[in-house]
């Protein structure tokens, strides 16, 4: 994975710029007037209730959907003209398909590298080294030749991250990737992402419901409910009751927001 110098962090250029984006499925408007900038080194959580448009927002960035209005710029290039898709890593919510057909961890992680080198080149020595590095970063070297179907849910999620990292992305997008993990697994998962962000300068954008697990780790929170209702530090989001308003119920997190605070905010918003 590519690391960034302190100077590069300080300049913190915009990797992703979303300007006035609307999107809908037929008449059903899913996102309205989304404006968001993601800078190099950001560690950002996108929060919101079911149907708020979180996954849709990720899929717009990934080029899987095209915006109805507005512009998405990726590394300074308009989204539909952006060709270096390997610069944006993606960890989907479901890795269930991994175990359904025989495939080893190495084979799956190698597909991430293929995304970077393209159709015309085979895997060279350097590519194999990068795959090994991605496996090692996720603690998967020992499991490299094991069938992925024999792994636990947490291990499969690490395989999905290793696949994304093998392409040496500059931004990593994760769609509720910790779902299904137990509390310890979830904590170690977010800890791993925090380490990549802190030590290697990887920009991380994660969609999650679980503000409790990420509030201590992320630098910025975006609360989404068709439009962006809050953007800022997680502490501020929790303390000013934005989250309780967003979910229309008291949200309290031990050590961050107490029960009384959460209930009061939710009541006042109804």
């Amino acid at each position: 994975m590519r690391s960034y110098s302190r100077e590069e962090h300080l300049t913190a250029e915009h990797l992703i710029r979303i300007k006035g984006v609307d999107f809908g499925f037929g008449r059903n408007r899913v996102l309205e007037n989304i404006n968001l900038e993601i800078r190099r080194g950001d560690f950002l959580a996108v929060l919101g209730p079911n149907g708020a448009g979180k996954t849709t927002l990720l899929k717009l960035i990934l080029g899987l959907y095209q915006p109805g209005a507005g512009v998405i710029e990726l590394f300074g290039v308009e989204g539909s003209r952006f060709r270096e898709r390997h610069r944006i890593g993606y960890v989907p919510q479901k890795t269930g398909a991994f175990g359904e057909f025989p495939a080893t961890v190495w084979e799956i992680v190698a597909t991430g590298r293929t995304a970077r080198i393209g159709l015309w080149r085979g895997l060279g020595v350097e590519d194999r080294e990068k795959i090994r590095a991605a496996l090692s970063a996720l603690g998967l070297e020992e499991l490299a030749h094991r069938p992925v179907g024999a792994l636990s849910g947490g291990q499969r999620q690490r395989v999905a991250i290793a696949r994304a990292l093998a392409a040496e992305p500059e931004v990593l997008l994760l769609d509720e990737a910790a779902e299904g993990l137990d509390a310890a697994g979830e904590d170690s998962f977010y800890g791993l992402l925090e380490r990549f962000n802190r030590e290697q300068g990887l920009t991380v954008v994660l969609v999650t419901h679980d503000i409790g697990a990420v509030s201590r780790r992320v630098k910025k929170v975006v609360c989404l409910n068709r439009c962006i209702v809050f953007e800022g530090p997680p502490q501020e989001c929790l303390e000013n009751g934005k989250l309780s308003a967003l979910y229309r119920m008291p949200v309290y997190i031990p050590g961050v927001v107490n029960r009384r605070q959460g209930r009061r905010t939710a009541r006042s918003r109804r």
Partner: protein
Amino acid sequence: MMDIWHYEFFTRAITAGAICGITCPLVGVFLVARRFSFLADALAHVSLTGVALGLLLGIAPGVTTIAAVLAAAFAVEWLRAKQRFYADALLAVVMAGGLALGIIIVSKSRGFGADLAGYLFGSLLTITPTDLYLIAGLAVLVVAVILFLYRSLFALALDEEYARSAGFQTPVVNAAFMFVAALTVAMAIRAVGVLLAGALVVIPVLIAVRVNKSFRGTVITAAAAGTALVLGGLHLSYACDLPPGPAVVVLGIAVLVGVALLREVAELRSGGSKSHEKGVRGCT
């Protein structure tokens, strides 16, 4: 038994069968992994329209078959990718449509019932040197495309949405795959016939899936199993005086059931020994 090798027709049948036995599972692996195995059957039924058209118009049926199957394959891919039809329902419609159109053409033209029977049930033993060259040429093309696109096809089979997001050229890869799938089905029809072509594409893959842990191993085993089944089926056909296509398929199903049972027994035995180990550890 070895006498049969002296017959030229049998040598051609064996060679063509072995080529189909390698090629069909190579395509089949990706079809099964994508939950799209029914495609081979659907295209095989469409080929009936191609065969009937060829016989009716006096054009070489091989040519019209390939044209019909290619047209159907690209139509399926367009409807799946752009119109977002349910894949299984779409294939059922294509299969019924191909069969219906073929029967209509046959009903309007009398006199090629015997020729059509060969296409329905396969006629490996009647393969001409020209057929053999055509099958060999198609197989080289199919294997070359599969090897070239191997890693992209694997990524797509694993997770198409991820592959699209990562910048794999999915429309190009899918179109190329549909092209080779159509050619492969056209080949398989010559070997085992319209009604059994799907089996030659799928059965060796299912056998390989039961005994492999890696994708690469599955691909190699499926190709080996396909070849062995065709050769074994042809010998069975000669020894027991059975039609060759059905003999290949029945042998394949017997091997698949045998492999599944063996694996079940092996799992039961290893499960027993594992729990025994656990119990011993628990006591100590």
